């Protein structure tokens, strides 16, 4: 997994609530999906017009936000499906951090699997960040410092955010979950041996049928 230590750049406000995974990556685009190509279809229903042209009203189509690396979102962003394409899609657009009041639980987890940082903040703070991100001003640079767990806004305000230690370490070091868990393979084997005595019916024999 790639590391995420500090992130500097523009934040795009996308405050519509309940943007679900069917909006982020529509079902019709999943069949051939890969992390490399998904960004072509990210936010398709919002980003493009029925004739296939860009919708100029959509924030990421506006010149000031084309290179955005942060998305400030409305509540419940990423609700709906488990599809990890939603994270591939936003990461493919260059977004490495999403900030909102709440997120779909599976989406929230999927972000960490792809080195994208989701940050939950109280609604008022999200609204303030959205206002700063949307302000028509010269300096638009936000800075996210993963080690310090802080967001620095263009006006120089510093906001702390919460991030569990293990998540922080994984982002900073680019650690992969599978490798981490494999270290516990002995404990997994012991658990199964014990459990097989207590709940033998759980341990099916090999392939039948």
């Amino acid at each position: 997994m790639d590391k995420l230590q500090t992130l500097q750049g523009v934040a795009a406000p996308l405050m519509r609530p309940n943007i679900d995974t069917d909006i982020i990556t529509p079902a019709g685009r999943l069949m051939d999906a890969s992390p490399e190509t998904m960004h072509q279809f990210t936010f398709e229903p919002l980003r493009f017009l029925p004739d296939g042209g860009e919708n100029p009203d959509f924030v990421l189509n506006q010149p000031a936000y084309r290179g955005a690396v942060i998305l400030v979102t409305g509540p419940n962003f990423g609700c709906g499906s488990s599809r990890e394409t939603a994270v591939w899609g936003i990461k493919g657009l260059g977004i490495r951090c999403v900030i909102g009041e709440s997120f779909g639980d599976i989406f929230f987890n999927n972000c960490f699997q792809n080195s994208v940082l989701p940050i939950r903040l109280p609604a008022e703070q999200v609204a303030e960040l959205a206002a700063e991100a949307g302000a028509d001003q010269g300096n638009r640079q936000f800075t996210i410092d993963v080690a310090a767990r802080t967001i620095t806004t263009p006006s120089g305000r510093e906001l702390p955010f919460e991030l569990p230690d293990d998540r922080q370490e994984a982002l900073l070091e680019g650690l992969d979950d599978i490798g981490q868990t494999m270290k516990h393979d002995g404990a997994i084997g012991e658990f199964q041996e014990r459990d097989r005595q207590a709940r033998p019916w759980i341990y099916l024999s090999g392939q039948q049928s």
Partner: protein
Amino acid sequence: MSDASTLFDKLWRAHVIRPLSDELDLLHVDRLLIHDLSGGRAMIELAEKGLSVRNPELCLATPDHSISSLPGRTAASSPFGEQLAGGLRRAAEAAGIRHFGLEHANQGIVHVVGPETAFTLPGSLLVCGDSHTSTHGALGALAWGIGSSELTHVLATQTVRQRRPRTMRIAVDGELGEGVEAKDVILHIIGRLGVDAGVGHAVEYAGSTIAAMSIEERLTICNLSIEFGARMGMIAPDDVTFDYLHGRPLAPAGEDWDRAVAHWRGLVSDDGVDFDRQEAIDAGEIAPQVTWGTSPWQTLPVDGRIPAPDDFAEAEKRHNSRLALDYMDLTPGQAIAGTRIDRVFIGSCTNSRLSDLRRAATIAKDRRVAQHVTAWIVPGSQVVKAAAEAEGLDKIFLEAGFEWREPGCSQCVATNGETVAPGERCVSTSNRNFVGRQGPNARTHLAGPAMAAAAAIAGEITDVRTLAN
């Protein structure tokens, strides 16, 4: 009582291999369900990493998302069927994973196949790369949906790394009114609590109404847990559960069965235990539901009127409702009944089991689907299809002008190319009415199977209670 535990606590504790930090546990996965949309790919990814499937005997794979539902179908009948269902078959065979392929008598939607084969068991921890995995909680399993990276992780290690959610209990008590189904109960709950009420929570459904429900009804309830944000929904196993499971293909047998049942009887929330959140629902208040918007909370009794955005106190709901009414092309103040429709889809992991089809058939019998409506019945599995045919339900539907199709997800998500056309209005027994869910610019109204069948007959959204009389 300090040592009182919730059902959730008991299930969680039984699966902790070791804590990884204060809040993060490494949990054993007893059951992994794999489908064609992400399964084949995850197994290929695993192989590319030089890893193998740790416990193939604890996995079950079946294609559902990409395959056609056309009678007489093959993998080639849908645009990506060969690639995805074929890929799943090859990967499952290579890994030695139990695979119910396209021609297998047990093929079907993962969330239908798991319970009906007793792959899903009370007390088991089950995951699947699909958000509606909460369905399996209806049997007293701890079950939730995971992403594709997590899926690869489970394949390699037979574990998940998971943070403990908060607990929530929803008690539904009282008797259901005439024509009210499990689908109406859960839509009503989501409408009452809101679309994100369950975020971060594991939900236990309890109360006399739930206790009186069949397993198939309970599966419908737990299926929609994710639609108010809860990753896990569960119901304590009881005699109804044990009777349902007994004798199914993968259920324990003989002495193992007796030991298992004795163990399962302890899987209840202890008296007086605390939940982080509690809600009470009066079953008597629930009417047959139909959704009017593009999120499942936007539901109303079928005899109700379409709300105006200004009816909602919260700015966010007003905003959402305005967008939804526009997308759905509906006018506030109108009765929802009488809204003309183009399509009906009866199927999906929410409502495609035998009892669902029976209720729809009761409505369809000796009636005709309206001229302008295309109506599909897509059974949830080959087992459901065979059982329905054995009692003649297929004939009732075909005579009424419904299409009788092959098992799979089909129009619930339309990844197999079976879309609702732009601008068309569909009454669907599935679980998501999101923008574009059934196809670009498709308009979806969620309802139960009897209401959907009634809409097919009437050619418009209609109150099943008036049609039944």
